[in-house]
């Protein structure tokens, strides 16, 4: 019985001049978002949310995770996702829910004790719903970030063919395990696809080399050797050479060259191509 009463209290709270309430809600949220979303869209979103919430409470759902709230949660999920994609902050997202609490506040001043009771109960539900919004928002952001990382990975590891039988991978940026794995696979696949026996790994664009990066490079080179290709490392800058020596990394019998040009010359020589400068054409 107590539950029935509390439900009717909540519904009463929300339904009492519902139109004015919803308008005020929209106005508050619109103010917080600073006009970055069209008013018509906002009205549509919040109206849907309002009626779904009313419906849920009428059906007896008094908890944000209750069965009856699934419609509300679905609407909020959609709202948080679109906010996250459009680059709104977490507070700008959560305000859509929390503003409803502020809108209901004035009604309390002249209200009786049971009205306050109902308000407190509703505010608990709204708090939970706001938390739910922020969680969804964070999930969406994480998805976006990981999708971007994947794209970056794709972009940053091209394998280029320099000559018949000579391919090169210019590495740019920071090397971590995941990226080196991608580079390794792409390089080895390119060896098979192009039938190249010479590969050059150019690390001119690599900001720093530590023991882990060196380890990855060595693994790639050994794997290429296992497949029957030779690898040259080029583009080692003076500071990086110093770091490598200071760290005590042994490159063993792996050929290293200062520049890509030197490495290409060596690779061509090994694959039996001779470079001849023509007399009279020299600058």
């Amino acid at each position: 019985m107590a539950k029935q009463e509390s439900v009717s209290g909540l519904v009463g709270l929300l339904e009492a001049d519902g139109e004015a309430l919803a308008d005020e809600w929209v106005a508050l949220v619109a103010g917080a978002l600073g006009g970055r979303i069209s008013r018509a869209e906002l009205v549509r979103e919040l109206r849907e949310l309002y009626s779904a919430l009313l419906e849920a409470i009428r059906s007896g759902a008094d908890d944000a995770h209750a069965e009856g709230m699934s419609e509300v949660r679905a609407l909020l999920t959609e709202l948080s996702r679109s906010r996250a994609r459009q680059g709104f902050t977490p507070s700008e997202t959560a305000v859509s829910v929390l503003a409803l609490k502020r809108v209901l506040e004035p009604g309390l001043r002249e209200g009786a004790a049971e009205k306050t009771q109902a308000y407190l109960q509703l505010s608990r539900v709204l708090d939970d719903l706001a938390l739910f919004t922020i969680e969804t928002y964070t999930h969406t952001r994480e998805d976006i970030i990981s999708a971007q990382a994947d794209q970056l990975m794709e972009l940053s590891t091209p394998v280029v063919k320099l000559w018949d039988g000579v391919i090169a991978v210019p590495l740019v940026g920071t090397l971590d395990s995941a990226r080196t794995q991608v580079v390794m696979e792409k390089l080895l696949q390119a060896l098979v696809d192009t039938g190249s026996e010479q590969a050059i790994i150019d690390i001119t664009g690599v900001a720093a080399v530590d023991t882990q990066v060196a380890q990855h490079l060595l693994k790639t080179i050994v794997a290429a050797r296992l497949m029957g290709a030779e690898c040259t490392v080029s583009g080692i800058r003076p500071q990086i050479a110093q770091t490598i020596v200071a760290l005590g990394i042994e490159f063993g019998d792996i050929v290293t060259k200062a520049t890509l040009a030197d490495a290409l010359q060596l690779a061509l020589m090994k694959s039996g191509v001779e470079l001849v400068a023509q007399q009279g054409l020299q600058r």
Partner: protein
Amino acid sequence: MSERVPVLRIGDILLVSIQVDLEDQTVMNLQEDLAEQIVSRSARGVVIDITAVEIVDSFVGRMLATIASISRLLDAETVVVGMRPAVAITLVELGLSLGGVRTALDLEKGLALLRRSVSRTDRR
């Protein structure tokens, strides 16, 4: 009775093309067959084609190294050809760099490599 991998002869080179899943017994049989054939046909080189091999374990990795060592003792050089990228990565991760084994990208390059090195040793 486990499957046997055929050993083919091209001139003084033996060709082993592995087309079946490598079970331990198959590998042991192959080692025996190969050692016998190198002697009986006085082969100078062995080409092991693993283009069709998709999965390797440390046993297969060691097998390649062992076959290379056996052949070298019998004065034949071993070239492993057609290793897939995934296989190469696995072997590296397993810490097997197949030190004494020569490798080539495909059969054609492997045969060319063997012919070059065989003719070089003949001149000596």
